[in-house]
C-alpha cells in the first residue's frame, strides 16, 4: 500500500464538493456530497458473515484497460472457469465489486477508470495486473501512460507478471478473497479518507477535467 505523504498538507475541506470541472447546468445533475467511509457492523459475527459473502461473490467489471485483460477471457471461459469461485463478469460498474485493471493505464483511460471506480457500489476492490500499474513497466517512459496506479485510485491486490497467466490471476483472486474474509481490504475506505489527496493527484494529470469530483 502506498504510504500517503503530503495528505496532511491539504487543508480540511467542507462537506460539499466543488465539482469545478462542470458547467453550471451540469452541476445540478450531479451530487456534490463527499463520499462516506464504510463502517463495519458493530457485531463482529455479522461483519464476518458479510465479508464471507462478499468474498464469494466477486463480480468483475468488464473493462479491460490494457493488454493483461486478454488473460481474463481464458480465465472466464471453461478452461479455468472462474465461475466456480463465485466470480463473474458484469458489464456495468454499478453491478460490479471488483475492478481489474488490466495492465498499463493511459491518461485517457485513467479518466474513465476513475469514473467507473467511483460509480461502483461498495464494497469494492481493485486488482491491478502486471508490472505497469506497479511501477510503469514496459511504458515507464511513455508520455501517455501513468507509472503508479495507487497514486490515483487505491489498489487492493497486485498480481505480478507481464502478463500474469490465468493461474496467477486465479491465485491473486483467491488471495483477495482471503483478505476480504479477514476484513483487511480497505481500499475504498482509503480512498474516502484521503479523497483530497487522490483528487489532487488525478487532477494534476487529467487535463480536461469535465466531470464531477465524485461520480456517485
Amino acid at each position: 500500500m502506498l504510504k500517503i505523504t503530503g495528505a496532511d498538507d491539504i487543508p480540511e475541506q467542507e462537506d460539499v464538493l466543488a465539482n469545478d470541472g462542470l458547467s453550471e447546468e451540469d452541476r445540478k445533475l450531479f451530487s456534490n456530497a463527499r463520499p462516506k467511509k464504510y463502517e463495519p457492523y458493530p457485531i463482529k459475527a455479522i461483519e464476518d458473515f458479510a465479508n464471507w459473502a462478499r468474498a464469494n461473490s466477486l463480480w468483475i467489471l468488464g473493462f479491460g484497460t490494457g493488454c493483461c485483460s486478454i488473460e481474463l477471457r481464458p480465465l472466464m471461459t471453461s478452461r479455468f472457469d472462474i465461475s466456480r469461485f463465485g466470480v463473474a463478469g458484469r458489464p456495468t460498474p454499478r453491478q460490479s465489486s471488483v475492478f481489474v485493471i488490466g495492465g498499463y493505464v493511459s491518461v485517457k483511460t485513467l479518466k474513465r477508470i476513475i469514473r467507473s471506480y467511483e460509480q461502483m457500489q461498495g464494497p469494492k476492490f481493485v486488482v491491478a495486473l502486471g508490472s505497469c500499474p506497479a511501477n510503469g513497466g514496459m511504458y515507464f517512459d511513455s508520455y501517455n501512460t501513468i507509472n503508479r496506479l495507487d497514486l490515483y485510485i487505491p489498489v487492493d491486490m497486485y498480481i505480478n507478471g507481464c502478463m500474469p497467466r490465468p493461474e496467477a490471476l486465479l491465485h491473486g483472486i483467491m488471495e483477495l478473497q482471503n483478505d476480504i474474509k479477514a476484513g483487511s481490504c480497505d481500499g475504498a475506505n482509503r480512498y474516502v479518507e484521503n479523497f483530497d489527496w487522490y483528487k489532487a493527484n488525478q487532477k494534476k494529470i487529467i487535463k480536461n477535467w469535465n466531470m464531477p469530483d465524485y461520480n456517485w
Partner: protein
Amino acid sequence: MGNLTSALLERLERDFDITDITERHERLTTFKVTRDHAETLIRELRDREKYTHLNFITCIDYIEDGVFSLVYMLQNYVTHTMLGVHVDIDRDKAEMTSIHTLWAQAWTYQRELREMYGINFPGSPRLHEDFMLEGWDDMPPMRRDFDTAAYSTEHFGHVDRESEEPRQYMKVQFYPNRGGDEE
C-alpha cells in the same frame, strides 16, 4: 525494378520533377516530389496507374534539416509494387494539402499527423478534434525534440531507485585514494 515501373518513373520524372528515386527492394521504390506537385501526382497514380490502395500516410521528422518528410505509400494490386512518395515540408510552417477526397480513410491519417506532429491539412475533416490524446497541451509528441522520458518523469513521477555504474563503483572500491579524474 520491373520494366513497367521504370517506364512509369521516367514519365513521372519528366512530368513531375521527381527526385531521389531509390529502389528499396524489388517491390518498393521511393522518390521525392515537391509539395505543389504532390496531390496531382498521387491523383494521377491512383487514377491512371492503378496505384489504387493507400497503404498509409506518415511523417518522418528530419529535425536537423528542418523538414518533415511526409510519406504516402501507394500500392498497385496488378503489378504488386509499391511507390513511396516523399514530400518534404517546412518544419516551421508545417502545412500540406489534404488528400481526404482521394481516399476515404486519408483524413484519419491526417488527423493523427496533426496531433502527433502538428502538421496542418486545411480542409481535412475533424482535423482539430482530439484523436488519441485528450487535452494535450504540450509540444506534439512525435516531434523529435519532444522528450518523452522527461515528460513522464515530470508528470508521472518515477519511484526512486538507485543504481551504481560498475565502472565508477569499482574505481572507488579498488583505488579509494585515487579519485584522480580531476583534469
